[in-house]
């Protein structure tokens, strides 16, 4: 017998359903509901701006080269910065090959208040970093702006990026960070490869092993506490758990892919050959290469965009030549083509200049963000060139010295070490000839000699500036020697000549520099005329958890001859000081002779990567050098 339900029961059931739906908004997924209900508080993570409650990436690679990348994020903001970071969520994609589909986007301020993102809250923009290069690339950002976002809101975003057209480059591999600054409750990354395909992977910095189920590889992170980012750290891939993965069979597969793209574009044609004749008349191959390089580096405009953003197919060399601008691919193609036209071998090379280690066991192109050219002379000598280096002395490769680069030869792709052709010192030497005036003023000459990284930094600041602006920069430099300084004269070497060192010389006078206190005169030897020769190092913290990555290993020196008024007694000059440890050294010397003070300093840092465990030594070195007593001079006015 079928019992008919009492109307009261029916009503109660209806009321219960309504109550649940009113209470729950639209969150029906029990796992998500639970995460929201039990979301941690800021007090649980006092250093974090937000917490990733749930993050799932599921990349499905199809055998035809297409792919779908599903994503699901549930993030709780803890504060103002968390709100800023996640309130406008950006998803990068290539409009030509991909589309972004948003299935769910909503702000959750408690389960009873769920606000969906409406269509006005989803916008497509050209990323700001692409604003002068949009001709090259169809990369866009989908921006999802979450409504009703407060400091402690939760956002949920579900969607996918999928191919709408077969991409130019097969999806061979990538790298993913499993850890970031913010803490994570649960994060999974799943890569599904086509049947019969093997995924090579390599975990770094303690990343967990994936669970492998057939052709699915899943990495999982749970209860990650987060980190506090430290200044001057290397990129996160260098110290946070991450994984590199690839379906490529080897670097030769990558090499062949590149050769297919580049070979036909590199072949010199009449336009290239004519240009070569214009650019170089030398019969010496080394000189010829130099002439070609100087033309490509300086005369062809750099379109600055990371490698890969616009794909890997360069334009024809003669097209690049005609246009007069190019990104890293195009300028390499042009450089190689011109060098080939001169009968010299040259090869494209791929490198990473952001300080991210290349995992040579996991072949995929996204490891690289820049291209170089390796020239190979008949006598076996090799020369590395960076066609984007329009602010460097010829032969210097900014940010890549000593890095491993993948060179695509005609017979295969191999890794080589990037080295400098010239003997680069990465040094700044400044010579001061100063006169302290009886009234406390200071006048003198300053000569600046720079090399390597410092040459690059100096040229960068003034090479393309207007003459009047160059003068302003040097005035500013004179003012860091002595406040209120008046520039009397200046000589600047031709910064546009990349074959000659950058030299700067100026003379100045300033009315006030030393402090006169009755019969005592206090003077600090000036040690910082230019920003690039300044000492800005992150040594204010007590300790560090993560390494430091400096722009370069370096050496800086200052040599001073300071004339002192005849009626001043030199009471105190800095005591000689020095320190040497495995990271570097510093020394300060001063001597009084014939009424003059001869002062010099040097500081040398031996490497750019400073491990966390070496921080104390590094701090000791820098702090020891910067001690105020190292440049204090005390004089007394004779009675």
């Amino acid at each position, binding site marked *: 017998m079928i019992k008919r339900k009492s109307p009261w029961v029916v009503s109660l059931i209806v009321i219960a359903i309504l109550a649940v739906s009113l209470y729950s908004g639209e969150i029906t997924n029990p796992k998500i509901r639970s995460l929201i209900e039990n979301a941690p508080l800021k007090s649980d993570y*006092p*250093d974090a701006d937000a917490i990733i409650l749930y993050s799932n990436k599921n990349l499905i690679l199809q055998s035809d080269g297409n792919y779908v990348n599903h994503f699901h994020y549930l993030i709780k903001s803890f*504060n*103002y*910065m968390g709100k800023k970071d996640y*309130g*406008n969520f950006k998803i990068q994609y290539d409009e030509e090959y991909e589309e972004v589909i948003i299935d769910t986007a909503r702000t959750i301020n408690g389960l009873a208040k769920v606000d969906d993102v409406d269509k*006005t*809250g989803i*916008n*497509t*923009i*050209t*990323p*700001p970093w*692409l*604003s*002068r290069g*949009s*001709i090259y690339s169809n990369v866009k950002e989908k*921006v999802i*702006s979450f*409504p*009703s*976002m407060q400091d402690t809101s939760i956002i949920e975003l579900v969607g996918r990026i999928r191919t709408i057209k077969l991409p130019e480059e097969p999806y061979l591999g990538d790298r993913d960070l499993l850890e970031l600054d913010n803490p994570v409750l649960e994060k999974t990354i799943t890569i599904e490869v086509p049947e019969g395909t093997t995924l090579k992977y390599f975990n770094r910095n303690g990343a967990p092993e994936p669970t492998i189920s057939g052709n699915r590889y899943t990495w999982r992170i749970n209860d990650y506490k987060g980190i*506090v*980012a430290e200044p001057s750290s290397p990129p996160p891939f260098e110290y946070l758990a991450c994984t590199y993965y690839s379906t490529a069979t080897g670097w030769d597969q990558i090499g062949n892919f590149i050769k297919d793209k580049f070979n036909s574009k590199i072949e010199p044609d009449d336009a290239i050959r004519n240009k070569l004749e214009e650019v170089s008349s030398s019969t010496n191959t080394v000189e010829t290469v130099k002439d070609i390089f100087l033309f490509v580096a300086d005369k062809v*405009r750099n379109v600055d965009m990371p490698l890969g953003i616009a794909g890997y197919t360069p334009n024809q060399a003669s097209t690049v030549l005609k246009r*007069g601008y190019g990104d890293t691919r195009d300028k390499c193609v042009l450089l190689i083509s011109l060098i080939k036209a001169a009968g010299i071998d040259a090869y494209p090379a791929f490198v990473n200049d952001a300080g991210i280690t290349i995992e040579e066991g996991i072949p995929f192109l996204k490891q690289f963000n820049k291209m170089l050219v390796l020239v190979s002379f008949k006598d076996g000598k090799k020369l590395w060139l960076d066609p984007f280096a329009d602010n460097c002395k010829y032969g210097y490769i900014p940010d890549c010295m000593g890095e491993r680069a993948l060179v695509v030869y005609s017979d295969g792709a191999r890794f080589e070490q990037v080295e400098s052709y010239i003997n680069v010192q990465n040094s700044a030497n400044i010579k001061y000839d100063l006169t302290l005036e009886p009234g*406390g003023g200071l006048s003198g000459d300053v000569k600046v000699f720079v090399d390597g990284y410092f040459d690059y930094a100096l040229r960068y600041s003034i090479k*393309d500036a*207007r*003459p009047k*602006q160059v003068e*302003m920069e040097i*005035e*500013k430099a004179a*003012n860091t020697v002595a*406040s*209120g300084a008046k520039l009397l004269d200046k000589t600047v070497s031709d910064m546009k000549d990349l074959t000659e060192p950058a030299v700067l010389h100026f003379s100045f006078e*300033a*009315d006030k*520099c*030393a*402090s006169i*206190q*009755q019969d005592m005169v*206090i*003077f*600090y030897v000036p040690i910082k005329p230019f920003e690039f020769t300044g000492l800005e190092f992150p*040594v*204010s913290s007590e300790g560090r958890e993560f390494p430091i990555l400096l722009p370069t290993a370096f050496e800086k020196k200052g040599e001073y001859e300071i004339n002192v008024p005849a009626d001043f007694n030199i*009471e*105190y000059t800095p005591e000689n000081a020095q320190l040497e440890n495995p990271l570097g050294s510093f020394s300060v010397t001063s001597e009084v002779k014939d009424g003059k003070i001869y002062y010099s300093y040097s500081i040398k840092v031996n490497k750019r990567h400073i491990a966390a465990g070496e921080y104390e030594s590094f701090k000791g070195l*820098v*702090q020891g050098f*910067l*001690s105020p007593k190292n440049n*204090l001079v*005390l004089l007394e006015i004779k009675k």
Partner: protein
Amino acid sequence: MKRFIQQIIITILVLSFLFWVNCSHKPGIWEMPSGTNKADEELMQKIESAGSRMEYPNAKAIVIEDIDSTIFTPDGSFTQYNYSLTKLITLTGAKDYGTMGLPYDTLFFEIEIPLARIIQEDGSIINIPDSLITDETMSDLVMMDVFWTNIRRKVINFPELSSGSTIEYLIIYKTIQPRFEGIFDNSRYFQSDEPIKYSRSVVVGPASMPLDWKIRNDEDNLVSFDKKEMGELVKYTWEAQDIPQVIMEEGMPPFTDMAIGLLASTTTWRDYSKKIYEYLEPVMKTDEAIESKVAELIEGKESEYEKIRAIFYYVAQKIRYLGLAMSSREGIQPHPVTETFERQAGVCKDKASLLAAMLQSAGIEAYYVLSNPLNHVDKDIAASQFNHAITLAVTKDGKRYFLDSTDEFCQDMLPAYHQEQGILVCDKDGEDMEYLPSQPPEMNSGKVDIKSTIQPNGTLRGTATISGKGIYDEVIRQVVRMQEGAQLKRFIERLVNRVHPNSRIIEYNIEPDPIMNLYEDAVITIEFEIEEYAIMAGKYLLIKPVGLEYPFDIFVTTYLTMFTQLEERKFPLNIQFTSGVVSNEEIILPPGYKAKVLPESKSLNYKPGSFSMSYQFKDKLIFRNSIMINESEIPPEEYEDFRKIKEEMAESSSGLAIFIKDEQP
């Protein structure tokens, strides 16, 4: 009317012809010839005689011609033709001009580029194909979390540029709808950062809508003017020749404030104010949700001021700054306040109107106000010069409170950078434009108090307390808000490290908690220690007061240092607000020392600023120093005095209190 329309058509045709003739082009300019061809002799002559680096050593390019012609109609719609011929005279110029961005608003304008080409030194012409003209969103807006997809930029990519190339283009702007119905206004510049050989602006409009106009910053009277009556139309022409380039100086006011420029308008400030009010009125209706929130916020508040403050803090801090394009007059008309409230997000116009509506709901007289905190607004001409919106509340006793709800850190409700800037209150009867008053530096100054003890081994242990008023308080809050936990500790470590590289923090404290509680002043207290602080130099003990170089000052001395490095200035120094910092310090010395020499007290008072410093010793060393910046913009003739303040400060920073062992204890 028919006659009027006929006249418009004739004028357009005539103007086009004149334009073409004056530009000396070949017939068929409006076509895009394929392949390359050669420029005619007259054009080449113009280019060759324009000059080179010899004549213009500081230029990267020479603008040979910069011409625009605008025709407007009674409803405020217009069509504008912009023509430019620019010769590149350096390689850097060739690189810089490789791309050219043209902003435009798709809600109000269509843009056509019928001409874009390069004329090479040999006369060959390269026409820019459509494929080299892209359309993108404005990156500047995106960086401010404004995602108005109607604001876009056309980018022309010029290939094959080298020193000696000349670029030529014509752009046509046509209104889709006027920004302000029945109003036409225009601004354009006769000067740029490159020299300009010839510049002309022509405006044609109905005689019934006469133009008020003004040329700004033209001390040498380079711009001439002509007016022609043409029946029902009037033609206004401004032109100038050989206009020198502006060489940018660090810290100068916005270029648009300094360059020779034209402002023109058919309206008055009162009518402008009324027009904005017309757009505003429909969006100001509140609903129950808003009214309920207002009631909640003002509950228990007795004075109108307290109510204003409560509502202001809510809008400033709870309504997120976010720009989403939702209306047909996006950028001009605020979103309905009910929508802004529901979304809890909006840009300045949305927040300002919501604040006004909420204040009105609380029974407080309130208005929407246009402002511009960055540029100088010219009072003489009612042209669009505003880029921001704030709110005015008026209490029953007639006191006015200007409120900027975009700034969530401002205790005073109007940040200091609004001082002396132009504003326009929008109400139904219309208001005239006015300028906000200047503020004395004390209203925006920092205060640093330091107490320390030096031990016999030279170690110093001390406590510094940092607080401030006005913008100083605001900056403290911003710094703290953006960094929490370990990041904040790192910031404090950096501050202390500025005293001495050996410094270390013992403890620190920030009040109030939360820092966004604007009812309490922001205060940072730091306890620190520095080994080997006092210098033993032979028989002397040398002590530099901890606050001598203002290490705990958040920004004042940085500004002073940054902006006094040039020997002289051609342009004013734009600091945007008055401010200062005062430091009081007491240092207890180790026993057994007496003062040998203390630096002399100093006091400098100039119109743009002042500096003072004093040392006293009696049982302990007492040190005081202060810097005040009295003007938000320092004219070139006062720069030297301003620089003297920095020089004095720098010289004083070499000073040391010198003590000597007391032979007689």
